[in-house]
């Protein structure tokens, strides 16, 4: 493995137009400061990274490394202090709140660690929520396909309180898929699950990438989870410190030790 300290991982924008490497999302020299003046903390210190369409990327790093901040900036939930963020070919810095909301609704999917579902809605209603907020009709075939792949057919009329944690996360994953987003962001999706439920969810995410050509970026601190990805990007102190392709569990653990995670 090569240690690529802050080396640009993507080519210059012109070069990216090459069809072979279509980027679902990318950050260019993203800097994020929290707070003002002397008390400000650098969460992201000039991060440039791209996520190729149809790939599954894990972001790892110790607490405070900036991995969640990077995810939030990429997803349009937070804005970088400087630098640029693209989802597809859309520059997020040019968008106001209304357009960002629309972008999240139409081109981005989310799976959080917890508080993923509305307790008042059934599983099916939760899955269809982003579409109904957008006033769009679901594609029934695609919906059926997603539901069957995730194995929720017989749970569609249940409310979250009647589902196990693993089932709830699968509903969240199905919700993120159903609008066919450009990219799905998952923030510690297995953090609250037991190992079996976690494995099921990761298998499903893997499937979404392999079968449906979905792009997924997942923040995790668990090497077992990260090993399901095509690539691991390691962050420390707001910088990208390493990258690992086709990772293994042991390799991920070794790298984490190396960067002090």
């Amino acid at each position: 493995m090569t240690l690529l300290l802050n080396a640009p991982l993507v080519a210059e924008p012109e070069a990216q137009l090459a069809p072979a490497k279509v980027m679902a999302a990318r950050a260019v020299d993203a800097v994020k400061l929290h707070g003002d003046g002397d008390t400000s903390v650098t969460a992201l210190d000039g991060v440039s990274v791209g996520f190729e369409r149809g790939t599954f990327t894990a972001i790892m790093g110790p607490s405070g490394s900036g991995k969640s901040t990077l995810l939030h900036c990429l997803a349009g939930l937070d804005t970088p202090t400087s630098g640029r963020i693209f989802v597809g070919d859309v520059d997020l810095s040019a968008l106001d709140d209304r357009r960002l909301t629309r972008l999240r609704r139409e081109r981005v999917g989310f799976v959080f660690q917890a508080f993923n579902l509305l307790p008042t809605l059934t599983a099916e209603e939760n899955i269809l929520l982003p579409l109904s907020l957008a006033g769009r009709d679901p594609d029934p075939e695609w919906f059926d396909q997603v539901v069957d792949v995730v194995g929720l057919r017989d749970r569609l009329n249940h409310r979250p309180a009647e589902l196990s944690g693993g089932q709830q996360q699968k509903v969240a994953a199905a919700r993120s898929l159903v609008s066919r987003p450009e990219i799905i962001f998952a923030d510690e999706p297995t953090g609250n699950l037991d190992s079996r439920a976690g494995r099921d969810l990761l298998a499903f995410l893997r499937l979404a990438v392999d079968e449906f050509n979905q792009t997924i970026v997942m923040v995790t601190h668990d090497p077992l989870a990260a090993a399901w990805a095509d690539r691991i990007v390691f962050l420390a102190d707001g910088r990208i410190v390493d990258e690992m392709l086709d990772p293994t569990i042991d390799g991920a653990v070794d790298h984490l030790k190396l960067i002090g995670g």
Partner: protein
Amino acid sequence: MQPAGHGPRFFHMALAVALAVGLVSGTFVLTDTIDAGFHGATTAARGSVDVVVRSTSAFSGDASALPERDPVAAEVLPAVLFVPGVQMAWGNVWGWAQVVDRDGKAVPPKGMPTVGAAWGADQRIVSGRAPQGPGEVALDASTAGAQGFGPGDRLKVMFGGGSEEFVISGLLKPGSMVASTMVSFDLPTAQRVLQRPGAFDAISVRADPGLTAEALRTRLRPVLSDGYEPVTAAQAANEAEASWSKALGFLTTALLVFAAIALLVGSLIIFNTFSIVVGQRTRELGLLRAVGASRGQVIWTVLKEALAVGVASSLGGIVLGFGVARGLLELMRALGYDYPTAGVVFLPRTAFVAVGAGVTVTLLAAILPARRATKVSPVDALAGTGQSAETRALKSIRGRLVGVAARVLALPLIRVFGRPAMLGRDNAVRNPRRTSATACALMIGIGLVGVVAIVAASMKASAERTVRDTLRADFVVSAKPGAPSGGGVPPAVADRLRRAPGVDAVSEIRTGEFGFEGKASSLVAVDPATVTTMHELDSTSKAAALQLDDSGVLVRDSFASARRWRAGDVVPMTFARTGEQQLRIAALYSTTTVRADFVISLGAFENNFAQQLDTEIDVGLAPGASIADGRAAVQQALADFPSLAIMDRNEVIAAQSAQVDKILVPVTALLALSLLIALLGIANTLALSIHERTRELGMLRAIGMARGQLRSMIRSEAMIIASLGAVLGVVAAVGLGSVPVASMRTVGVTELVFPVAQLIGLVVLATFAGLLAGVLPARRAARLPVLDAVGRD
């Protein structure tokens, strides 16, 4: 102890209680202020008078500036003047008089009827000089200032017998009598215009220096014949104040009832808030218990906060009370009750009662939630069982009911707002206890407003029906609405009407008070010969009216049967002027057209009452005469009496509706305070729910809910809660409205009417008010940064 984001709930709660406490405190400030103003006025009016000689009165009715007493014969004055120790004595004459402004319109009296009086030693002139001779008048300086009159100007004044023009000789110092508007004449003129030929209403006596009023009173007694009494001026003033305080007492009670309603609604909000907060803090309180706090200590941590809310809101309420008192005074002024006031009066008692009420209500409302906090075992509390409690509540009966109701009420909102309204509806349903408690607060206020609306509509419909079915008179003449009750219609009017061309029949109706079983009761006096031609009565009542003579009385059948009276029995009735009289029951009547339980003849009225004023005069036109000609003739006959209203049947109906509205408006205004408090409750519940659902809202924003959609969702929830409360209130009003209406049967309310459009309007209005209540919480929620909600690193 204060979780972040709970500032608004503290404020809402305190404001809710403060508004209710404000009404309590405002009630006392108002009545104390009026009381003091009245006391000041009577004290000033007493001036340098020590003893008053007047006719005895066997019965004193309610507050009236024109007491129901016989005049004092002029011959009494010399007898009084010869009593040793009398420095000065003079005859007083007073009576109803109405000042006319430059445009020929009656100057509206301020609270008390305008008083015309004879110039006396207790009056002071501030400019010009005292009135002398038949053509001069002195006008009180404040009315003169308001109307732009001064010495030398001509002034038209109306009296019972007609109107006259005078020259203003001077201006009277205000406050020298209880009435705020006053005109004064020299004695002979006053006796003429106020119709006291050769008599006084009372004699004012001043004692020699060194002689007490009481001693003078003792000396005066032997020289007075039967039927006269000397009383000290202080006692006379006390009597006036006592009857006044009684009237004020009614006002105080009525206002405190509204305050109690407001406190009840406020307490519901406190209860609801503490229930939610304790629920949210179950973990924290469980931790306290786990580290060894006793149940009492945990209850105290909750009650401490309630105590703080109670004290803060009570103090705020006291401040608001001044505004409330001011507002109520303005309201009364607008309705024609202007009382002499001299500065706002705040007694220590007001503070004690206000703080007591505020703190007690808050603590009582918080005690159940506080106890509930300790019922959860520490382990369960730490584990957190919120979700399962929510699911359980959904399956309760209340949960199902709220669910069904919300689903129906949300339908129009979903049409407008779409998906966000559905989410808002689901949020309203997910905690049925919270939603129903919040809606319940609104239900109480809306229910009462609804009952009032039903009663008012029933009263109007009954009045209209009575007029349409039974009134045969073509015109009814009465004092204009808003004219002082002491005014009435002078008897001269009826005589003029009888002489008017085209008028076929004139029937006078008078009303009066008398003592029965130790209490004041009211009666109606009619002319038995003509009353049945003006009012269509059922056959029994008609036969009864025809049997009435001057020694008899008609009694309502229901009133009589409760006392096992029959025709021929003798009823003891106490009249102010003539004492106890035995009247024989001539017959019983059942008609609800008459709004009193006793009816006597005009002859009996003349025998037993000092003031002879008609309440209404019914006028029938000759057959074939046109209404327009008849009106012209009546107007011509009454040209000298601009304060009289001439109404045909439709106008009578309109006037009675206006009369109902006059009560309806202040009652609704006072109930509106409870509605306001209930809306605060909605805002508060929403603020708490939003705080609770911060992360959920963040998730919604993250997956693509726009700010506008989020606001719509929360406003929808507010509107659903509000419309739920309003619908429940209207349903309750429809169910209960018949009770007060039924109890008003004997005063002529025979119809039960549900003002459907008004009741629906009430629900719509409440729903929009709910929208307003949801505006601020919705804005706060939309401003929540998404990241705070989904959690940072």
